[in-house]
C-alpha cells in the first residue's frame, strides 16, 4: 500500500507548481520584512522604540531600509497631507513587488483628529491599497509591533494582496488620486 504522505504527486500542473513556489517565497518574505524609512506623520515617533532596544524589531527579521526599491513595507505613519500623498504615491509605485502597506494611527482610517482639515486626506485606501491598519492616536509600540505580526499572518494566509488589487483596479485608484490631488505628479521647482 502506498503511503499518501510521502508519495510525490504524479503530475503537477503549472499553476500548482507556481503556487508551491509562491508559498516558499512567502515564507522568506514574511520572515524578512524590510520597511521603508519614511516618516510621513507623527506616529513615526513610536517607531524608534519599536526599532531599538526596547522592543527590538530586528528579532522578527524586520529592519529599516534606505530607499523604496529595497523595501517591502511602506509605513504610512499617521496623517497624510496632500503634499505628502503625492510623494507617497510616487514612492509606492517605485517599490518592487510584492509590496505591503501598513497604516498607523487613526488618521489614515477616517481622518482622525484632522477630519475637517483642508490639508489632510480622510481615507487612505481610496488612493493606495492598505493591508494592515493599526488604530490609535497614537498607537502604542506594542500595537505597532502587533500590526507587523498581523501582516506576517496575512502573508502566510495569502491575504496581503493589496499590490495585486492596485494592479487590477489601477484606473479606480488613479481616478481617486486625481479628484483629490488635481495633479498627481510632483513638482519641486517652486523655489526657482
Amino acid at each position, binding site marked *: 500500500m502506498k503511503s499518501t504522505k510521502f508519495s510525490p504527486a504524479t503530475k503537477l500542473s503549472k499553476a500548482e507548481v507556481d503556487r508551491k513556489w509562491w508559498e*516558499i517565497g512567502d515564507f522568506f*518574505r514574511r520572515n524578512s520584512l524590510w520597511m521603508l524609512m519614511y516618516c510621513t506623520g507623527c506616529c513615526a515617533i513610536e517607531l524608534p522604540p519599536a526599532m*531599538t532596544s526596547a522592543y527590538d524589531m*530586528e*528579532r522578527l527579521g524586520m529592519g529599516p531600509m*534606505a530607499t523604496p*526599491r529595497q523595501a*517591502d513595507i511602506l509605513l504610512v505613519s499617521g496623517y497624510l497631507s496632500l503634499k505628502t500623498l503625492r510623494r507617497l504615491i510616487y514612492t509606492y509605485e517605485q517599490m518592487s513587488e510584492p509590496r505591503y502597506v501598513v497604516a498607523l494611527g487613526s488618521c489614515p482610517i477616517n481622518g482622525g483628529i484632522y477630519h475637517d482639515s483642508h490639508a489632510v486626506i480622510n481615507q487612505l485606501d481610496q488612493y493606495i491599497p492598505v493591508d494592515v491598519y493599526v488604530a490609535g492616536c497614537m498607537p502604542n509600540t506594542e500595537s505597532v509591533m502587533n500590526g507587523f505580526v498581523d501582516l506576517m499572518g496575512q502573508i502566510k494566509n495569502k491575504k496581503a494582496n493589496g499590490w495585486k488589487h492596485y494592479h487590477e483596479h489601477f484606473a479606480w485608484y488613479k481616478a481617486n488620486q486625481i479628484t483629490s490631488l488635481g495633479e498627481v505628479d510632483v513638482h519641486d521647482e517652486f523655489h526657482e
Partner: protein
Amino acid sequence: MTIVNVLLGVSVAFFGFVLQTSIAGVNRKVIARLQKRQGPRWYQEFLDIFKLLSKRSVSHGWIFDFGVIMALGGIIATAMFMPLTSTFSPFGASDNFFIFVYLLAVGMLGMAMSASGSGNPWASIGVMRALTTMLAYEVPFLVVVLTIIKLSGSSSLTAIQLFQQTSGNNWFLIALPIGGIVGFLALMGMLGKKPFETYIAPGEIASGPMVEYGGKQLGMLFIMHEITVFIEVSLFVHLFLGGASNIFEFLLKYFLVYTFANLISNVNGRFKIDQVVKFYYKWPLIMAVFQAVIAIYFGWVI
C-alpha cells in the same frame, strides 16, 4: 586546469558564501548584544537574501542588469582561486596574490558600471566614493603585502602560509607588527566597516551605489558582497595570521577577525570621504613604508 579544479573552485565559492552568511548572521546577534538588543535569528541573512531573490524587480536598461551579473561572476571567479588551508587550494599553486587583486577589481567595476547605469545621482556619488576609498586603502596595503612577498620569497598564498607555519617563523602579524596594523586598517576599508564606510552611508547618500537596486538584483549584490567579504577576510587570515593547517583553524581565525572588525565598526562613526583619503595616505602609508624599509633593508623582523 581540469574540470575537477573548476568544480572545487565553485564549491569553495559556495562554501565561502554559506560561511560568510552564517557568520554575518551570528555577528548581527553579537552586535545586537552590544546595542542592548536581542538581535535576529542567526540565519536571518539567508532569509534576507532568498527573500530578495523571490521578489520581482525593475530593470533600468541592460547595463544595469549586465553589471550585476558581471559583478557576481567576477567575484565567484575570484573566490575559485582562494585556498582554504595550506594543503587545500582549488587551483594548486596558481593562488597568486595578484590574481585576487586583479579579479576583485572586475567585480567592483561591474558593480560600479551597473550602479552608474541606474542614472540615480546618489548612486553616482556612491560609486565615486567607493572607487576613491578603494584607491586610498590599496596603496598602503600593497606596500605591506610586497614586504611579505619579499620576505617569504613567493607571491602564492599557499607558499606564504607554509612560510609562516615553518618552525622559527612567526605569523606576519607578529613578525611585522606595524605592517599588521596597516593590514587590518586596510581590511576595515575593504570590508566597508565604520570609520571608512563612506560609500554606503545611508544617513548621507541613501545607501550609495545600492540606491536603485531592488529585488533580484539586490539579492545578487548581497551574494556578491558576502563572497567579497569571504575573500578579503581569508586574504587577511592567510597573509597575516599564518593561514591554517586545517579547516577548523581557518574557521576560528576567520570568525575572530571578522567579529573583531565588526566590533570596532560598531563603536565608531564614519569619516567624510576626504578624511578617509587623507587618513590612508598619511599614517598607514608612512607606517607601511617604514615597515618595509626596516624589514627589508635592516632585516629587523621579529
